[in-house]
């Protein structure tokens, strides 16, 4: 894969700053523009920048956790936040605020909307990571391995054929298929050398 020095260097600066911005959105969200979803999207933008610069491996390096786990934990946090007021005898999703006076910071308002937002934030990040995990790698390895379309687009004009009838339907890549074609190619080449 070709790498761009300028992009990589600038992402190194941009990535942390966008993450900080996304955290600001996350914490400001309860009564100002922002919130978990917007913050998560900002973080997702940062992650995609890193993907553009360094590929899926760079993304994996920055998030050691499984994308599944991040998504799941996020959903747990959000749903539990929704459930807690129910256990305390209120309505579902009811929120409360807590005013704290820690030294130096003055008055800090903690709302129960925050954990919900954190959950949403994690869900969005987990989702984006999952997308990169699922599709990110293909563009580097698999696409090059797959042969170019055997049927030219024009001949597919008789497109009312059912899917099963397409000759190329066999190109569905299962591990078995891959090993089969590999074997076939191997035996072919060996046959070639023998002759």
């Amino acid at each position, binding site marked *: 894969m070709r790498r761009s020095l300028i992009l990589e260097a600038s992402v190194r600066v941009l990535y942390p700053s966008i993450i900080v911005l996304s955290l600001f959105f996350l914490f400001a969200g309860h009564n100002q523009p922002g919130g978990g979803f917007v913050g998560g999207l900002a973080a997702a933008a940062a992650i995609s920048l890193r993907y553009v610069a360094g590929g899926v491996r760079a993304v994996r390096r920055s998030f050691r956790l*499984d994308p*599944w*786990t991040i*998504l*799941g*934990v*996020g*959903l*747990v946090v959000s*749903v*539990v936040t*929704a*459930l807690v007021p*129910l256990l305390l*005898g*209120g*309505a*579902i*999703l*009811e*929120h409360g605020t807590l005013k704290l006076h820690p030294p130096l910071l003055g008055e800090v308002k903690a709302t129960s909307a925050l954990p919900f937002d954190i959950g949403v934030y994690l869900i969005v990040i987990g989702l984006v990571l999952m997308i990169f995990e699922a599709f990110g790698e293909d563009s580097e390895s698999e696409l090059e391995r797959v042969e170019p379309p055997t049927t030219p687009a024009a001949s597919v004009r008789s497109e009312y054929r*059912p*899917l*099963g009838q397409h000759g190329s*339907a066999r190109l*569905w890549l299962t591990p078995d298929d891959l090993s089969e074609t590999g074997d076939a190619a191997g035996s072919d080449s060996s046959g070639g050398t023998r002759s």
Partner: protein
Amino acid sequence: MINSLVPLPIVVPLLAAALTIVFAKFRVVQQLIALASLASIVAVSVALLAQADDESVVIMDAGGWAAPLGVTYVVDRLSAIMLVTSSIMLLVVLVYAIGQRGSEATHPAFSPIYLVLAAGVSASFITGDMFNLFVAFEMMLAASYVLLTLGGRPDQVRSGMTYVVISLVASALFITALALLYSATGTVNMADLAERIPELSSGVRTGFSLLLILVFGIKAGLFPLFFWLPDSYPTAPGPVTAIFAGLLTKVGVYAIIRTQTLLFAPDSQQGTALLIIGGLTMLVGVLGALAQDDLKRLLSFHIIGQIGYMIFGLGLFTVAGVSAVVFYIVQTILVKTNLFLVAGLIDRHAGSSRLSRVGGLVRSAPVIAFCFAVPALSLAGLPPSSGFAGKFALISAGLDAEQWLIVSVALLVSLLTLYSMTKIWAAVFWGDPEVEPVQVEGRTGAGPSLMVAATMATVALSIAFVIFAGPIYELAERAGNDLTNPAVYIDAVLGADR
């Protein structure tokens, strides 16, 4: 207040879905979480039904914001009945799916998505807010897209495409309807809408009514919007088809019933339109079924036929008609799920679900034959099956309303259904296969015990349904009374002292 039970059928499956995602690597833990959550939902639903039958409407405002400002969760008798039925079916089908080894059901994503589907179905029944209904539908549909295409096989991708695109068009129409409703009335709360819609001119009212029938009709598979259904359902894995067939279309029917009875004062024009649609849906469903060779597709066409019966009952707009529909929906969900579970067993036992290929199952797997016979008789509506009770209620309601034409269509369709069921019976259970069946190794008997047990459970439920048909019908009648008298619902949501 004990009303805190109301949101649980939505929240508990969601929480369980989250936990199953976290435990994606431990399949047994996943299955246990899923089973436990759905079992607890069954208990919650039964409790809610008892409470709703007592107080007629149970309410919780999300976030403590009262209607019409906040989103309200409302459980009335109809919602509670649907909740109980759907949660039981979801649990049974999950057991069946766990029993079916070596299929998509063992995919690590199956449990979370199935639970999200469960949450979406519950949310559609519970919500008292039109936009929230949209969100619930999307939750359910998004999960169903994934379940349908989980295997990623070519036929699944093809049929999944049709399904997703059709559903998306329906969703776009739904948002359009919501936007128009909001600009006309300034609210999306159902009870509030019910108060404000009568103030609109009659033309606008009819337009909204038809637009909503169109939107939900696509999801329910009404004539002429049914074409996607028999294409897409059969390609899904067995248990998934069963839950789709049993529940998803009925959620659409539920939405039609809810909106038509609550929002729009019944008038004869609309009723006639619904009766015509219902009759055509019945006919198309059963005639389509007669032409099919594949068992799952055949049964999918019967889904459409049964939707027709429900719309026929609703179109009468009488207490008896609506009560009969409520009764019939519950019965259909039971029977339909049962039939598709049996179809899955046949598929597994004989290696094919094609009528021309399988045969002689009455000798090789009598258990399957028994599990098929009970719901098949029910579907055809022969006494003393549960289907007889349902159809009898519908047809006597039709006779009371003096709608002779639709009643005769319904009877004719019933006869054709019987013919179709005997066709299946003769092809699958009697006789010999025309083509030698593919013998799959290690598959003797009816199938894995969990799968058979789940199927037997649905059979037992539909037998129990006949035995307790009296009390259930009385309950349905009370629900029908509520539906034809929406003031109860509106007062409960908005408060009687407006």
